[in-house]
């Protein structure tokens, strides 16, 4: 049984706390009593110690997050213990959050083993409740029960819940089997899959593709660029979660009979690519992220709004120049392409809706750090030091095992501003 | 009806009315029963026999006397102490031992054991493990006989313990009201398991109960074959001729305990020894010798022959195969598809 790490109550009338620092990352091992994280109270910042020895997993609150008292924010697994779906952990905690009272302000308040045991005996830790029919259907459809919420008694997942979920994602996938895709090159074994970012589209990869051809490392390989929903020539389907978009991309890969994928994602596309790498049934061999969204917490909201609402070419150009360090990269062709995309009927509205879901008020509403730490494929991250859309400081949060290529004098478009370097990084991923 | 021993030339009349060969055969059968029981006891004490057994040593005259006049169309029902009845009705010691050893060649293919020996095709409807269990069945068989217009009879054996069971009373009443061809034979060996018949039974003779059911009843010396034979002949003739049922009480004694786990705490050594002095085989052998129906040499030959038969039977049983575990649920139903252990059709 893994040990819960909860946000403890350290003040008498405390109902929530915010995390101001983490001393460990996902996958680190800790000893009981070692510092895990800091929480800020009205009085002071408190260091919270680990309640057990083991490996930290399923961290669900980040620095800056405010979380109700008693919420499970991480789990400590004994070495060799099987990791469970994070949703189980949340369900376990919220159904019966153990009452935690600290005697003094110093003592870390951690639920006793007895309290945890009581919670489990009340059925809180029973795992995912699902009827046999629901389980069978989920198994057949390759769907994780943890992704589905149950409508039955005790939160039990019934067949209809699975069907509805599959229908939604299939519809999404079905719609997205219509996602527009461009084969820049057909190949034999592997395929490089390019996933663009917010408000871009597949043709924006062409400069990089030119650079890649120049590098001479991509003779045998396929290169496939896919338009996200609501972008390029894809339909304006609203997809309100990364998994949905990832499913949609996966459907294209299946449709195109991609056997092995090397994913390359830029900005928001990087988040999509990471999500896809974590859940794809099409084998993914490497992941290359260019200034990915979802590692840090904030982004340039003004830029996003500005681009989607720009009324004339001059205004648009001005916003687009925010993307790069050297404005000469934003040539007429670049602006024209962007303008053309925005001119499609319904496109601006679709982009605005998407922005509201994922970047509202400049805060990223998703976090890919946990997904990244669950990957076993080579991951490289390329970031321009002068990125004004997603600051390179985000990269400081990356685990040390992920290779970072920090490019001086480069903005948010390393694939254009430093095409040759990016091509080389991608080429190295193929080996 | 009182049993009167009418003698002609000092010989009980019945012995003159029955062929000599039948009498010699009766003696042989009694010896066979005795040796069979003793051998079974030996085998048991050597750990060759599963469960327990109920020996009828000392009750041979009752068993043989009541069955020697029957043929294969007649039926018997027997008790848990029924080895003698079965041999009397023609059972083969080979197949009896095989059954005790749980072998496939036993009368019940190893499924029944000592208490359920039967050979329905030859009229043995089976020993029964329930005290009083055989009485209603015997009456049912008698009902079939009557319906089928046959001259057959049913001899229904039970002990003094059964005579207080509801089944005894219900069965005698049924047999009487429907005038069925059944001879009820109570082998009163004085004890149920440990309870003496004096303590268990309201009447001093079981045969008194015949009056309650308006049928003839008689108490006889169950250790004298000639007495048993006389009573049997009368009752069987009455039944065959449509005269209805009779209740015969054979007073006898079991030399051994109730079963192999009996510690004989409920009776005295003196009692056991005094009955031992009235061994029915000794008595009958003596009678046949005195009447000139057999000589000592022939008896010796007879005994040796019985030994051979017993030995051959034991060998047969030991060499026989055990049942296959896969056939566990065979014969639960007739002609049904094979069921699994859980009763699921395959």
């Amino acid at each position, binding site marked *: 049984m893994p040990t819960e790490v909860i946000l403890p109550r350290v003040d008498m009338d405390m109902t929530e706390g915010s995390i101001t620092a983490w001393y460990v990352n996902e996958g680190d091992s800790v000893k009981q009593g070692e510092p895990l994280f800091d929480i800020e109270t009205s009085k002071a910042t408190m260091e919270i110690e680990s309640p057990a020895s083991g490996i930290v997993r399923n961290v669900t609150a980040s620095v800056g997050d405010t979380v109700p008292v008693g919420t499970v924010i991480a789990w400590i697994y004994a070495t060799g213990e099987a990791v469970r779906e994070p949703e189980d952990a949340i369900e376990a905690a919220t159904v019966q959050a153990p009452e935690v009272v600290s005697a003094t302000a110093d003592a870390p308040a951690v639920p006793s083993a007895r309290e945890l045991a009581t919670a489990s005996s009340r059925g809180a830790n029973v795992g995912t409740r699902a009827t046999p*029919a629901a389980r069978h259907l989920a198994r057949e459809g390759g769907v994780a029960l943890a992704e589905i919420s149950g409508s039955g008694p005790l939160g039990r997942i019934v067949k209809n819940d699975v069907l509805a979920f599959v229908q939604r994602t299939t519809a999404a996938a079905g719609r997205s089997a219509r996602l527009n895709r461009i084969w820049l090159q057909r190949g034999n074994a592997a395929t490089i899959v390019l996933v663009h970012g917010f408000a871009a589209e597949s043709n924006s990869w062409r400069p990089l593709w030119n650079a890649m051809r120049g590098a001479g490392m991509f003779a045998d390989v396929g290169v496939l660029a896919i338009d996200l929903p609501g972008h390029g020539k894809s339909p304006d389907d609203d997809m309100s979660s990364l998994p949905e978009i990832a499913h949609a991309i996966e459907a294209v890969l299946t449709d195109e009979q991609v056997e092995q994928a090397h994913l390359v994602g830029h900005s928001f596309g990087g988040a999509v690519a990471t999500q896809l790498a974590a859940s794809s049934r099409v084998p993914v061999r490497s992941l290359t992220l260019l200034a990915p969204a979802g590692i840090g917490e904030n982004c340039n909201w003004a830029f996003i709004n500005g681009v989607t609402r720009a009324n004339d070419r001059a205004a648009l150009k001005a916003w687009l120049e925010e993307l790069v360090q050297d404005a000469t990269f934003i040539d007429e062709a670049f602006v024209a392409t962007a303008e053309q995309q925005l001119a499609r009927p319904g496109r601006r509205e679709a982009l605005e809706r998407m922005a509201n879901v994922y970047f509202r008020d400049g805060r990223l509403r998703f976090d890919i750090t946990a997904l990244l730490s669950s990957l076993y494929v080579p991951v490289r991250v390329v970031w321009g030091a002068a990125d004004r859309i997603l600051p390179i400081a985000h990269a400081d949060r990356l685990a040390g095992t992920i290779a970072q290529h920090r490019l001086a004098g480069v903005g948010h478009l390393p694939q254009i501003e430093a095409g040759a370097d990016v091509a080389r990084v991608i080429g190295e991923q193929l080996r | 009806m009182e049993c009167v021993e009418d003698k002609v030339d000092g010989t009980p009349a019945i012995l003159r009315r029955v062929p000599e060969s039948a009498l010699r055969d009766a003696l042989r059968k009694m010896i066979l029963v005795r040796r069979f029981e003793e051998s079974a006891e030996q085998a048991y004490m050597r750990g060759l026999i599963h469960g327990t057994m109920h020996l009828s040593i000392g009750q041979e005259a009752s068993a043989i006397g009541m069955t020697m006049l029957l043929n294969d169309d007649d039926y018997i029902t027997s008790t848990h102490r029924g080895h003698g009845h079965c041999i009397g009705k023609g059972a083969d010691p080979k197949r009896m031992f095989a059954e005790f050893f749980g072998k496939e060649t036993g009368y*019940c293919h190893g499924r029944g054991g000592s208490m359920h020996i039967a050979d329905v095709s030859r009229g043995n409807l089976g020993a029964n493990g329930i005290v009083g269990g055989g009485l209603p069945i015997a009456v049912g068989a008698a009902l079939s006989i009557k319906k089928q217009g046959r001259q057959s009879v049913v001899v229904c054996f039970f002990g003094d313990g059964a005579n207080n069971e509801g089944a005894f009373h219900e*069965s005698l009443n049924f047999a009487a009201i*429907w005038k069925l061809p059944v001879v009820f034979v109570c082998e009163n060996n004085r004890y149920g398991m440990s309870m003496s018949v004096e303590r268990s039974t309201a009447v001093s003779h079981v045969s008194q109960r015949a009056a309650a059911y308006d049928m003839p009843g008689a108490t006889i010396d169950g250790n004298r074959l000639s007495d048993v034979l006389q009573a049997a002949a009368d009752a069987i003739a009455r039944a065959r001729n449509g005269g209805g049922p009779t209740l015969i009480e054979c007073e006898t004694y079991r030399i051994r305990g109730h079963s192999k786990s009996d510690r004989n705490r409920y009776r005295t050594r003196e009692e056991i020894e005094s009955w031992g002095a009235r061994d029915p085989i000794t008595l009958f052998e003596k009678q046949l010798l005195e009447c000139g129906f057999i000589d000592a040499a022939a008896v010796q030959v007879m005994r040796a022959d019985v030994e051979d038969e017993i030995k051959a039977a034991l060998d047969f049983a030991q060499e026989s195969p055990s049942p296959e575990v896969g056939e566990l649920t065979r014969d639960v139903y007739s002609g049904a598809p094979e069921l699994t252990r859980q*009763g699921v059709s395959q």
Partner: protein
Amino acid sequence: MNTAMSEVRELTYAQAINEALAIALERDESVFLMGEDIGVYGGAFQVTGGLYERFGPERVMDTPIAELAGAGIAVGAAMTGSRPVYEFQFSDFATLAMEQIVNQAAKMRYMLGGGVSVPVVMRFPAGSGTGAAAQHSQSLEAWFAHVPGLKVVQPSTPHDAKGLLLAALDDPDPVMIFEHKLLYKSKGVVPEGYYVEPLGKAVMRRQGADLTIVATSIMSVRALEAAETLAHDGIDAEVLDLRSIRPIDRQAIIDSVQKTSRLICVYEGVQQLGIGSEIAAIVSESEAFDALDAPIVRLGGADCPLPYNPQLERAAVPQVADIVDAARRLVGGRI
């Protein structure tokens, strides 16, 4: 089921049994009836009326009140070439004959190594609803279904009452027939002449898609009524009349639950350790387990002796409203 060309006519359940007995007595000399008051009186539930007059006292035999020997005589007669039908006046009185039914009839064939069969039929008027109270209202069929060597059936219609009885009389093994008292006056189409309904086979009374109701005896009738009401709610119930509880038609149950994914078992015997427990276990052990989209529901008799007061008596066993309510909650995802 094979019928000669015959006019469509309705008989009561009791008349159907009577007709079956008459046909059997006519066809086979070895068949005869035994029971208390079955002769001139015509039987406590008037099932054997007229048979005594037609076939005489040798074929229709009144017995004294002596169930143990009565049943045992039937066993002994069956072992020796006869085919008796023993009628218990109330199923509750089977308890007096348990020795001969369970220790003798059920076990003879097996204990004796297959050398004999016991082709006896025993009939039991069973069930509650007549105000006969605790000792005259029980549903004990599950006890008998628990005994290897016996066969146990519960016809729910006049058609089946005749067909199953005729099949039982052809069966070489002991067959226990439990007839619900409240069904004796129920009417249904009964073909003329000889026909059999096979033992061990359930019958689908109503096809449906939303849930399966497996029912026995009078509960089959109530389940059909409930299905009519449920249809108005847009709930399509499938009703499987088990008919035979030893042997049980497992495949019919499994197939139905695989189709509908929900199961209610309805039976009058006490709920605990009753036939519904077996049905639920069968499903849980089978491929139908993966089709279940909700827990299995058992509706059985209450955990008390049958009471005398009529409201209590009704409340002690499942009624149509109980079946409707359970089905609504089950299909509505509230169970």
